Each structure stands twice: as C-alpha cells, then as structure tokens.
C-alpha cells in the first residue's frame, strides 16, 4: 500500500559512502546534501534550475540538485564535487583532469559556480570517446547550462579543451 508522508528516511550512496538521513519530503536534494549530509561543495545559486551551480551526478548523469527532491534519490548513487577527485592510494588524492585543467587555465575566479561546471563537464568528458575530436559546439553544449558571472567563459572553454586533451593523452 502506498503511504503518503511528510517525512522520510532516505538511504543513498554519496561519493561511494552509504548515507542515511531523515528529511521532510519537501527537502530539495541540494539542501539535503548541504544541510543534512554536510557536503557544502554543492553550491546553491538560483534554486530554480537556471544557474547550474548545484549540478551533481545521480547514477552518473548530471542533474540539477535543486530540481530533485531528496526523497527521490532513495537507493541511488550521488556524486558531488567532493567525490570528483580519486584516491592516489598513497594517502592523498588525484584531481579529476577537469579540476586540474580549471587550475591550469585559471577557469575560476570567485569559485561559486565552479562545482556545477566541474560536475557537468566531468560527466560530459567521461561519457565521450576521448579519441574523438572535441568540437566547439560540444563544448558550448557542455558549459551552456551553467552561469559564470566573473571569469567569463573563455578560460572555462579553454579548460574543457585542455582536460579533453589530457584525457586523450592518458588513454
């Protein structure tokens, strides 16, 4: 029988770690990540799907975490910017090529929009064949849904190309 609830306990894997939290059903995924799970890397800008700052991966696909309810990720796997770097198995971490490229290309200034860009671009590049030529149109499509109000997009698109090249070389 279907229950109609005002509060629910959500079990979700976040950055590879099983987590459980009890939230009001109206809790947005973005707020659950930040307030209930303490993962403040996911930034909340417009809170209606326009700015892209809150983009996270749900089962590997980028989605706006402000446009999903926390109760909707029950049993699923969420990756936030905190989970983008990989363990180097020597006690440290290796940045994702996109993170490395953002640093190299000065693709961030205040950094507010950066987590959303990183998640969207990382998912976009991870999904494509690294050997294929990266077109400007692909890059525009990848970054077009995210707003940056300080660096402009020149260095961000430069970073996308740089990360793609690094991923091609690392094949």
């Amino acid at each position, binding site marked *: 029988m*279907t229950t109609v609830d005002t509060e629910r306990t959500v079990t979700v894997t976040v950055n590879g770690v099983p987590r459980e939290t009890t939230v009001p059903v109206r809790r947005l995924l973005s707020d659950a990540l930040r307030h209930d799970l303490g993962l403040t890397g996911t930034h909340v800008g417009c809170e*209606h*799907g326009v700015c892209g700052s809150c983009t996270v991966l749900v089962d590997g696909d980028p989605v706006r975490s402000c*446009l*999903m*309810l926390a109760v909707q990720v029950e049993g699923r796997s969420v990756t936030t910017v905190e989970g983008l770097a990989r363990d180097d198995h020597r006690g440290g971490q290796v940045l994702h090529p996109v993170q490395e490229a953002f640093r190299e290309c000065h693709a961030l200034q205040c950094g507010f929009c950066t987590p959303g860009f990183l998640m*969207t671009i990382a998912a976009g590049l991870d999904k494509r064949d690294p050997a294929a030529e990266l077109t400007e149109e692909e890059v525009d499509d990848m970054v*077009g*849904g995210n707003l940056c109000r300080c660096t402009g997009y020149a260095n961000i698109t430069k970073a996308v190309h740089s990360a793609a090249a690094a991923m091609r070389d690392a094949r």
Partner: protein
Amino acid sequence: MKPAPFRYADPDTLDEALAVLSAEGEGAKVLAGGQSLLPLLSMRLAAPTTLVDINRVPGLDTVEVTGDGVTVGALVRHNQLLGGHRDAMAAARVQPLLARATANVAHPAIRNRGTTVGSIAHADPSGEMTAVLALTGGSVTVASPAGVQTVEWRDFFVGPLETSVHGAEVVTSAFFPALPPRSGTAFAEVARRKGDYAVCGAGVVVTLDQDRRVERIRASYLSVGLTPEVHDLTDAVVGKPVDSADWAAAGALARTLVDPDADIHASADYRRLLVAVLTERTLASAAAEAAARATVE
C-alpha cells in the same frame, strides 16, 4: 525560496497513483521529471498539497515506434529522444521533428531528468514539445479511475500552464503521428542563451505534390500566443516549384496570422518579425528535406 510543505507518495503502479490522486483531492499534483514543476514550487507559484511521484510506475519509460507514429511514455526523458540514443534514431525515421525540437530543450543536465510528456502536461506556450504535439496533430493518453482516453491536442491545451487534465488523471503517453510522404520538417529558435526559453521559435512541415510543387505548409510557434496553435501557410506559395518558392512570402503571411504578447524579453512587433524570419528560414530547410525525401520515396 523553498517549496511550501506538501505530502508525498511514490506509488508502484498506475492504479495506486490514481487511487492516491483520488484520495488526496484537487490539491494533488503528479510529479514526473520535475524540471518545470519544482521551479514553480520553489518560486511559490504553485503549492500543491500532495505530490504523487510516478517515477516508480513501471512501463512508462518506453518509446514505441510504428509506421503510424511515435508514442512516448510519461517517463521518457528528453535525452532519450536525442542524438545517438537508440529510441531517438528509431523515432527520427518516422517523425524527425521530435529530435529536432528536443535539441532545443534546455540544457543537458535538465534533459537528463525532464520528460517530454511532462513538458506537454505543463502546457507552457514557450515549450518545444507542446508546439510539436500541435504541429504533428498529436494526442495524449489520459488514465483515470474510470479508464483510459485519448485527448486530441486541441482539446488538451486549455490555456497557459493549463490543460484539460484535472483531479485523478495522469497523462501516460503522447502520440506524435508520422511525417506524411514527400514532406520535410525544420525547427529553429531565437533565445538569449542556447537552451533558455525561446523569445520566439518555429516548427514547420512542408509537403510537396508528385511534381515537387508545394502542396501544404503548416507552422507552429513558441512564445507566441497563450496556447500552441497551428497555422496553415499553404496559400502564400501553393503550387510553386520547391526550388523557386518564395519562402519570404510565407513568412509575411505568418506575420499577419500570429498575435504575440509583449514581455520583458521582446515587444509584440519584434516577435512578429521573428515569426517572419524564422518561418522563411525553416521553410527553406524543410522544403529541401521534403524534396530530398520525395526523390528517395
């Protein structure tokens, strides 16, 4: 802002979803992709008492393609109708407008979650899929405790953000009829930023006769008018050979048929101009496709 408090249910079957909708009354709302509904909740433009999440209902995530047309289930995400996806390629052979219009829907992260049918049920006159449903002469399937019925697009769209669906009803699929023979389509938008709501958009279908002369032209526009409409532009170029038809004349005719509103993005006159320009542009491209298809067929 945050959504106002509501109650939440995520039933496992369509029957249970309808039962919950019945029990919760008029204040209940169906949640599918949520990419239009959640912004409305967060901006407090809507405050449903209950959300009935249909994401766990099986059988709604399929795209069925037959010679008659394409049936898109209520949980088919926009991305499923785009690019290299298997469903998209099958659908494009029967009705190429679907993928063409979907390419203009928002951004990748939104297309991963948002649904084609949800976009239609949201009934935003700026929506791509509402215009495509109208332009193709499509319909939706509505399930209620009393049974299942088919609603033609004309009866479905009642006003901006308003459809004929009320109470314990769920739109379970949308049907887009196949493109007729010797026909071509095109879709184009003008938006401030790629993926944003269009200031104006146009979708067209051009059909040629056996001698490659213009037989029929239909067009539908986005962000023009309160509900999707289909305009017949045939008279401007009827009987003209496809290679020498004056598409600008069809654009000029379209301009006289539409009645757009002004808002902060554009004046009504500017929208009329965009209607003319986009009509001319899309017709040239659709006619070339129609001619190519007529040759092959």
